[in-house]
């Protein structure tokens, strides 16, 4: 089997789930005839027809709203946000209708809302955002953000089969830049489980999405300097895999959290609180974080590069922390 890109892994998950269950259908802007702005759904209209691959008007609220209504009759719609930034247009539908439905009146909402997120492609302020934390702060939702092709496929399948609403963030920088061989057989990756990408004894780098790759690169560099960093890929942000984080910190006694999301209110704050609550005695240094700046995502390449974390900055912070 040839290696599969992160983007193709997503398409494979959609095709296989639609083949498995006619209750699965897709809605979104330009996803049918055109195959999606990033071609994530290319060929799916041809295969599954007009009723299962629905090109919608530019109406994020209607897309998510209709997905909710469909799910109430037992369908499993997957709604695409052309860019995840546009999820802001349907914030109310997600945070008020979707997230509270089961709690308020026992009506589950098994929908998936997926779309390309993240920067590094010079998409500027409205096509680069990482708005995951608005939703991580919303009980009732699940939020996943895979870093590898394997996880993208396995997590998307889990998301479609989950009985709760899942927000599925795809890092567009990774779409065509990473590939790997995938199992031929059907597999899933469970929602809510982090994974140790690289073991190490000197410090823990907890991260997710594209920053997993930057952190692994930093860890390589650090290893050459004699510092062994453990890299934990969260994969799911809500519910957070507390055990894996705590266990890693117990092993290394030092924690660096890295995210591409902006600094204030990013998940690093939550993880820092969690670790001081549950593993304070194990810590041998301050909890550090490397994040984007607290600004909108700027456009021009030097500005965006300055805004984003990178392997060098992660390594620098890790070195500091290791020395502490």
């Amino acid at each position, binding site marked *: 089997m040839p290696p599969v890109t992160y983007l193709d892994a997503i398409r494979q998950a959609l095709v296989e789930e639609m083949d498995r269950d006619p209750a699965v259908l897709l809605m979104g802007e330009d996803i049918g005839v055109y195959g999606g702005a990033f071609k994530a759904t290319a060929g799916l209209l041809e295969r599954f027809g007009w009723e299962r691959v629905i090109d919608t008007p530019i109406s994020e*609220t209607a897309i998510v709203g209709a997905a909710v209504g469909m799910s109430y009759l037992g369908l499993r719609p997957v709604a695409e946000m052309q860019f995840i930034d546009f999820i802001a247009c349907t914030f109310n539908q997600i945070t*008020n*209708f979707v997230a509270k439905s089961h*709690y308020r009146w026992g*009506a589950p909402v098994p929908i998936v809302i997926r779309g390309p997120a993240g920067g590094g492609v010079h998409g500027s302020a409205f096509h680069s955002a990482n708005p995951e934390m608005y939703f991580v702060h919303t009980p009732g939702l699940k939020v996943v953000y895979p870093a590898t092709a394997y996880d993208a496929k396995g997590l998307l399948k889990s998301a479609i089969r989950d009985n709760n609403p899942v927000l599925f963030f795809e890092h567009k920088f990774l779409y065509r830049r990473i590939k790997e061989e995938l199992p031929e057989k059907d597999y899933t990756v469970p929602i809510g489980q982090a994974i140790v990408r690289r073991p190490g004894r000197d410090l823990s780098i907890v991260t997710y999405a594209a920053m997993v790759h930057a952190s692994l690169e930093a860890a390589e560099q650090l290893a050459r300097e004699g510092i062994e960093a453990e890299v934990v890929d969260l994969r799911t942000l809500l519910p957070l895999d507390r055990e894996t984080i705590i266990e890693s910190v117990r092993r290394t006694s030092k924690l660096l959290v890295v995210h591409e999301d902006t600094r204030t209110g990013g998940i690093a704050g939550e993880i820092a609180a969690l670790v001081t609550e549950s593993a304070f005695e194990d810590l041998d240094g301050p909890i550090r974080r490397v994040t984007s700046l607290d600004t909108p995502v700027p456009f021009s390449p030097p500005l965006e590069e300055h805004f984003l974390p990178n392997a060098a900055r992660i390594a620098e912070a890790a070195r500091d922390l290791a020395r502490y």
Partner: protein
Amino acid sequence: MKSDPAPQELTHEEALELYYYMRLNRSLDELLVRLFRQNKIVGGLYGSLGQEATSVGTAYALAEGDWIAPLIRNVGSLLVHGYKPRDIMTQYMARVTSPTQGKDGTCHFGDLKTHHVVSPISMLGDLIPVMTGVAMAGRYLGQKIVAMTWIGDGGTSTGAFHEGMNFAAVQRAPLVVVLENNQWAYSTPVNRQAPLRDFADRARAYGITSYTVDGNDLVAVLRIAREAVDSARQGHGPVLIEAKNMRMLGHAQHDPAEYVPREMFEYWKARDPLSRYENYLNQHKLWDEKEKAAIHARIERELAADLEFAENSPFPPPELAEEGVYCNGCHIIEAQWRRPKDELMPPKSSVKPEWTIENFGAMETGAAPAADRTQPQGSAVESAIVHATHTDRKRKITAPASRRAR
């Protein structure tokens, strides 16, 4: 108010049943106001006084298996759709026996399995896209159902209303939207929502059928609702019904509605929907005093029993607050298929992924038809969407109701 539609429009049984719901709606409302004054209601109380005919008449047009999503004033619709007064009482009293076990209040409840009622959220307009999805899913599953929801004059100003109506229209979803124009949105009169005499005119922008009906004329409301529901069920797309009525109290119990001209209340009081329906029944000799008294006695009995039930119901245990954020294996909703699934699976589902473009957007009518692509080999549904013609079947029924033949 002499609408005089042909009396055979309603069977004797229907006529009495409708009266039962109208009267029950009114009496339940009155009872809730008493409970509010006795401090037995938690939070605000929203009334439906003066709007009973719209709630009852529209919901009554639906068939078994149809779905509704009422707003909090649509107590009558919930009753017609099978909920009991105790459900509404316990909701307002925040008891554990309420449909939401005290998790939410007012008419914010529903049930996917038996009643097919979608709970509203407070954010107005959001139900329109959700019920569009319900309608689309019903069609997808081959169920032949209609979805109905309600929206206030104020709610039509939201973006969600527009997105939902428009999406329903392009999808030709079997959706009936009842636009309840009760003249006020909290303290704001309709003319500050939109400069329209008839809010039904909004339907023109979506290329869908609409009606304006005297919302206080139960029989006219039912007649129009039946026509709309039939049309939606037959696949002619969504229908917007504007029912004109009047919110006869303040926005909620806290609001004395001093901003409403007193004469306006008087005008509408003289057109009270319950009295009008009583007159109708009298006029057409559709009941006698004995039957009327029996309905009143039944309602009194039922309300007393339900009130006792509600008052004896405990509040929920505090720890219940922690439960139910996620669905962990509970309440799994299985799709009820009424069509062969293989129609939706490859190879049968396979289509040529091409648009059908009519007349290339030319301004001259009839331009370039020869150059049109052939229609996609899609499902019947999609060809209906692609080839939807612009039907403007807008009709008006204003007081006094027209004598248009059915």
